[in-house]
């Protein structure tokens, strides 16, 4: 995008407006009341969390052209990292006063993002040698392996770190000094502050030397290398960055939901992330919030409004609708809703 700043400013204003409406409650109505039940605060917070993850995925898939079918695993790693270190800290030998300090969850969150990012960077060096389908399958395998480890309590049932199938609950809310970043109306602003920063970061990367190098790699890796672009290094960096962002989103999610279960981070959720990114538009950073919002609102719509039309079948129909949506978007809007449409360009 040539002039990202105006778009960013407008978007920030929209975000502030939505949050403001929820706090002020004109006419005594919440955001959901004002929009006829279409947009709830819950949906907007989840959109923000997913935006953080999807910006990374967009950079990876849209710009660098690398496929990830296991991104939910990084999301889950961040979520469980925060959950374990804030809830099960004493089991690991951490002193209770440390674990209960207000700054501890923030430190854990940043540390988690850094660790997951580094891990992905290292793994990226190895598996990003693969191309196309094979890379997709390797990320798939990685994602499922992480999911199984989370589900199996990391193979250490006596420590009960990840809580098996039930996961970890009782995750504390984030606090700034003595002030909790809660209730949800306040948390919304925190989530979107981070999301906007991440969007700005994404826009910056796209416009930088790294971004141009990535596009070159996507277009023709061999040619890019021949002009001196260290493709392997850049690919690994982007993979690491996308994983770090996903983990950051995961941590914020953990403190929002207060309970995390492994089922949220398996293969199908990874697919859903790719669908959201595709629907929003892989070649545009704005595709992240657009895609997330579209899919979430559609899901909400089917769950709540269509109950009236199809009282017996709403949930089952949603499964089929999701598949149809994916196919329709891939067939007719391959550039996504926010993506730029160029004649012969198909980005997946």
């Amino acid at each position, binding site marked *: 995008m040539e002039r990202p700043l105006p778009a960013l400013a407008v978007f920030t204003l929209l975000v502030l407006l939505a949050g403001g409406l929820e706090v002020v409650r004109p006419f005594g109505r919440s955001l959901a009341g004002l929009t006829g039940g279409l947009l709830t605060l819950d949906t907007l917070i989840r959109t923000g969390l997913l935006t953080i993850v999807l910006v990374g995925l967009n950079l990876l898939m849209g710009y660098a052209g690398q496929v990830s079918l296991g991104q939910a695993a990084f999301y889950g790693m961040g979520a469980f990292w925060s959950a374990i270190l804030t809830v099960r800290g004493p089991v690991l030998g951490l002193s209770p006063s440390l674990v209960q300090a207000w700054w501890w969850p923030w430190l854990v969150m940043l540390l988690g993002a850094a660790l997951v990012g580094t891990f992905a960077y290292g793994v990226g060096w190895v598996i990003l040698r693969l191309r196309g389908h094979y890379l997709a399958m390797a990320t798939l395998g*990685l994602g499922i392996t992480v999911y*199984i480890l989370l589900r*199996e309590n990391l193979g250490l049932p006596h420590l009960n770190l990840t809580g098996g199938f039930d996961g970890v609950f009782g995750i504390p809310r984030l606090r700034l000094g003595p002030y909790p970043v809660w209730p949800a109306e306040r948390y919304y602003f925190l989530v979107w502050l981070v999301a906007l920063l991440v969007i700005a970061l994404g826009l910056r990367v796209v416009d930088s030397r790294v971004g141009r190098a990535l596009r070159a790699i996507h277009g023709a890796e061999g040619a890019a290398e021949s002009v001196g672009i260290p493709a392997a290094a850049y690919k690994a960096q982007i993979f690491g960055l996308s994983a770090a962002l996903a983990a950051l989103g995961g941590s914020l999610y953990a403190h929002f939901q207060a309970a995390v279960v492994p089922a949220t981070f398996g293969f199908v959720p990874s697919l859903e992330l790719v669908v959201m990114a595709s629907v929003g538009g892989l070649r545009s950073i704005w595709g992240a919030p657009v895609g997330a919002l579209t899919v979430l609102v559609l899901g909400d719509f089917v769950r709540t409004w269509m109950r009236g039309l199809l009282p017996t079948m709403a949930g089952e129909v*949603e499964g089929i609708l999701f*598949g149809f949506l*994916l*196919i329709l978007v891939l067939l007719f809007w391959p550039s996504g809703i926010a993506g730029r449409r160029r004649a012969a360009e198909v980005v997946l």
Partner: protein
Amino acid sequence: MEVRTTWAHPVIRRQKRAGLGLWTGLVVLLIALILLGREHGFGPADFAQFAVDGLQAGAIYALVGLGFVVVYRVTGVINFAQGGFVMLGPMLTVTFLGQRTTAEALQLLLSILRAVLLTGLVGLLTYGIALRLRRTALPLTRIMITVGVYLILQGAALLIWGPRPQVLPAFTTLSMQDRLLVVGEVVVRAQTLWIWACAVTLLGLLAAFFEFTLLGKAMRACAINRTAARLVGIPADAMAALAFMLAALLGACAGIAVGPVTRPTFDMGLEIGLKGFVAAVMGGLVDIRGSVVGGLILGVVETLWAGVTRAGFRDVIAFLVLILLLLFRPLVPLSEEA
């Protein structure tokens, strides 16, 4: 079915060495598991039992993997809907059988035939609707489209059959209780023999089809070079559609063969599909023999692993093997024309 070239070529030599390393690794893993098993007090009879059970699972993976290979070779698409075909086979059979748990042999046979053919039709439809429309799309788009098809199949199955597991009668006794053959201390279910027979028969038929029939050779031509095939008058689209139908037939048969053992459910396709995919990758997605052997090995290793270690980690081994495979076989030729 591989294009033969001289082994002296450096790329091929590296590939051969990598392949050798991979098989060595698997053998080492097998030995390690056996040693671990001995520690737990397993005797030769137990290992024989593991082998039998593993070969049963492996035969199913091999069949499902064949479906992936057929589609991939002819169209270059990884067909994630394959798991959906595996699920449709037994579910439709149960419906055609009237949900009875005992039946006459003829009734069962007819129900199976109808189910298999109907699933084949669904395979054709998959190709027709989803994949013909976007000719210029890159392979990954088409993969994602097959994912969408899988989601639709699973959702439709839930709508039609509900979440409860169905019951398919065993083929030998035509009822729920299967006959058991006891060989020494090893117990073999009669259905296992059916599964092996089915796998061998289908494999033989497929090989004969590709080798001896005009249609089969036409499909192979498409797989080797789609443009050249069209130049000599082979309708590549029709071949692709046929490939999908074949994959659906294979998948349905696999699902039906294992149906009496596993109580078919609307969501059984996901996991079997992924395991079958791993088997196919062991053949580089293009080699039928490799994928069959790979499926069998996967089944045995998986069963042995689950028996010897915590059962919860059973699925991990399949995906770890997948990752290792992908790392060691990056140079298998991909069908670029899709």
